[in-house]
């Protein structure tokens, strides 16, 4: 299996070579985008939905990648931010009739605030404590959503209205395919910009050596908090559009398993590597669909795959160490 992993990596080699080559990268991305733009008519509704889902996970995984891959903070409750975005939009549009586009910045602000509230006091903790605190936080958010009237309790919210944009009613699966494609592209763009910035480098300094980073004048708590807040906003954006896409949300969608799935996407593809994380998001969404025939075994296959990746290729299936810089 280990040998095969390496083989798989070799197959990805040419792909990676294209992605790393500044001359080829532009045209390759252009072609890829063009294909994705004209694809929907050729795709059935199933493929459209699955790809939409994959784009959603690209956004989520890139958001978590900032927290885990860049800042090196293990967040096991990332679904909580996803939930915060979904519920903020769901509650405000469904219960109070607020326009979706007005609720979107509110969702981002609420998620940012949640990031500060949970991150502020806990980001000083050692990494394994932080992991368990975030796990606990994720459960608190899920249980709260389950218990409260305003969140629709366990049944969740239904009938969340789909938004209009300049006379275009975003309603069909194909509409949402384009919306999520746009979100994914934006997420990639923002990730790339951040990775090459002063803040992006600071995350890596802190991740590789906290003491040395502090000695260089970097406020580790502040930098980590920034990662946490930006990650939270990615999650909330994904959640907001997730809510209007499905039209119904319930606490089940924001369980620990959801957090694990997003983390898997980040780790499988390669923490801190943008093309790797994108690939990881596609793997965790399309993989289970391809393995539908395996029934209950498919999650086991994934878990074993994750373990083998950690043991034999901890930098993920995407070749190279840190791409996209």
């Amino acid at each position: 299996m280990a040998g095969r992993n390496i083989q798989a990596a070799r197959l990805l080699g040419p792909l990676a070579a294209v992605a790393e080559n500044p001359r080829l990268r532009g045209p390759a991305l252009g072609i890829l985008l063009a294909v994705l733009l004209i694809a929907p008519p050729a795709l059935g509704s199933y493929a459209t939905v699955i790809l939409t889902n994959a784009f959603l996970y690209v956004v989520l995984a890139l958001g978590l990648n900032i927290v885990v891959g860049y800042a090196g903070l293990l967040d096991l409750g990332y679904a909580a931010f996803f939930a915060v975005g979904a519920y903020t939009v769901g509650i405000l549009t469904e219960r109070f009739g607020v326009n979706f586009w007005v609720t979107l910045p509110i969702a981002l602000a609420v998620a940012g605030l949640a990031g500060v509230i949970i991150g502020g006091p806990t980001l000083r903790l050692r990494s394994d404590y932080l992991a368990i605190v975030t796990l606990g936080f994720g459960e608190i958010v899920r249980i709260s959503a389950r218990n409260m009237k305003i969140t629709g309790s366990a049944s969740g919210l239904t009938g969340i209205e789909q938004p209009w944009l300049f006379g275009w009613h975003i309603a069909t699966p194909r509409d949402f395919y384009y919306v999520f494609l746009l979100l994914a592209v934006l997420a990639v763009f923002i990730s790339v910009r951040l990775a090459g910035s002063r803040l992006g480098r600071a995350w890596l300094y802190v991740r590789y050596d906290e003491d040395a980073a502090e000695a260089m004048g970097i406020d580790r708590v502040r930098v980590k908090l920034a990662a946490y807040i930006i990650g939270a906003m990615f999650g909330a954006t994904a959640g907001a559009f997730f809510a209007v896409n499905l039209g119904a949300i319930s606490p089940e969608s924001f369980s620990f398993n959801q957090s694990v799935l997003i983390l898997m996407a980040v780790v499988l593809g390669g923490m801190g590597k943008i093309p790797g994380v994108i690939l990881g998001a596609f793997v965790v969404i399309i993989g289970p669909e391809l393995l539908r025939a395996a029934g209950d075994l498919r999650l086991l296959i994934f878990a074993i795959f994750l373990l083998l990746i950690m043991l034999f290729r901890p930098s993920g299936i995407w070749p190279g160490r840190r791409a996209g810089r």
Partner: protein
Amino acid sequence: MKHFTRVLAAGALLAMAGGASAQAQGTLKVGVEVPTTGSEATYGQDMYNAAAIARDEINAHGGVLGKKIQLIVGDDACDPQQAVNAASKLVSQKVVAVVGGYCSGATVPVLKIYGDAHIPFVITAANSTALIPANPGNAFLINSTGDQQAITAVKFFQHKKIKTLAIVNEGDAYSQNLADLMRTAWQKAGGKVVDFETVNKGEQDYSSVVTAIDAKHPDAVFWTAYYADGGLLIRQLRQSGYQGMIAVGDGSNSVKLFDIAGKAAEGVYAFSNPIAQFLPAAKSFIATYKKEYKAEPGPYAPLTYDGMQLLVWAMKKAGTTNAAAVEKALASANGVHWLTGPIAFTKKNTLARSNFVVLEGKNGAWIAAK
């Protein structure tokens, strides 16, 4: 692995697009959306088996509109997101209608998908009232909804001279919905809800909840969730010395309840949709099921069988598989019946009558309660 990656890298899109293959000549595809993996898989498998028996019978009698029925299973794993994927796949495979729907939580988000695709959907098990407002109009519920279960329960408790009630749910969409409906109905009927608890699935230790219930001395405890944890709660209630009545909702009507609760489940009452052994019309169905699957039909087998028959009846009546016509025919159903009794719908597409019966646990099995 090699293959896997190559598919991902090169042809994932094409591979999926190819999934929507051309429809075979002379067959009608009907989707069966049930959980065939995960914790609720036995229910889902049971429902699929019943649908398959109906298919065989229908095809043996010449099919419908000159075509044979082909079933396609969509595994929702009782998970909202999986359910959306499975439903989209069924839509891509060009099914003309869908039967099934077990977990309410997984059924709510697919309503929109079938609605957008204009596919009639006969829901044969899921019965949370949360389904009603989310229904775009193409879904029909042939299992009575939770509010009707609550009415049945209120009548039964009053008949048994119950004054005070403790309600326990598991915090999921179905059991919390039923618990809320029950609380409202019971209080409206003048009863007292002395305790209302929410436990976690798979928690094992319910002793603190049991003590909290004991402290309120309710005449009856009503468990609204599934059998697996219900069995544990019943055991712990009886172990602590609780002597009052214990009743469970239709999520716990499985005989496996007795496996887990043991003798503590003796004398427990269950409100249930009609199960095969109590349906006079189901004799031959039970025999066929036993012959085919070497097992007793489960709690939702008769309803799923009826769901298939109802669908075929509607198509025949409409004379087409056109969605609007079939939906119109379904809505016009006026007492057609197969195993579970006459089917007619309210304006909200729910079953017009209550189909709930009361069962009692005796010697590790259910019997009809007095």
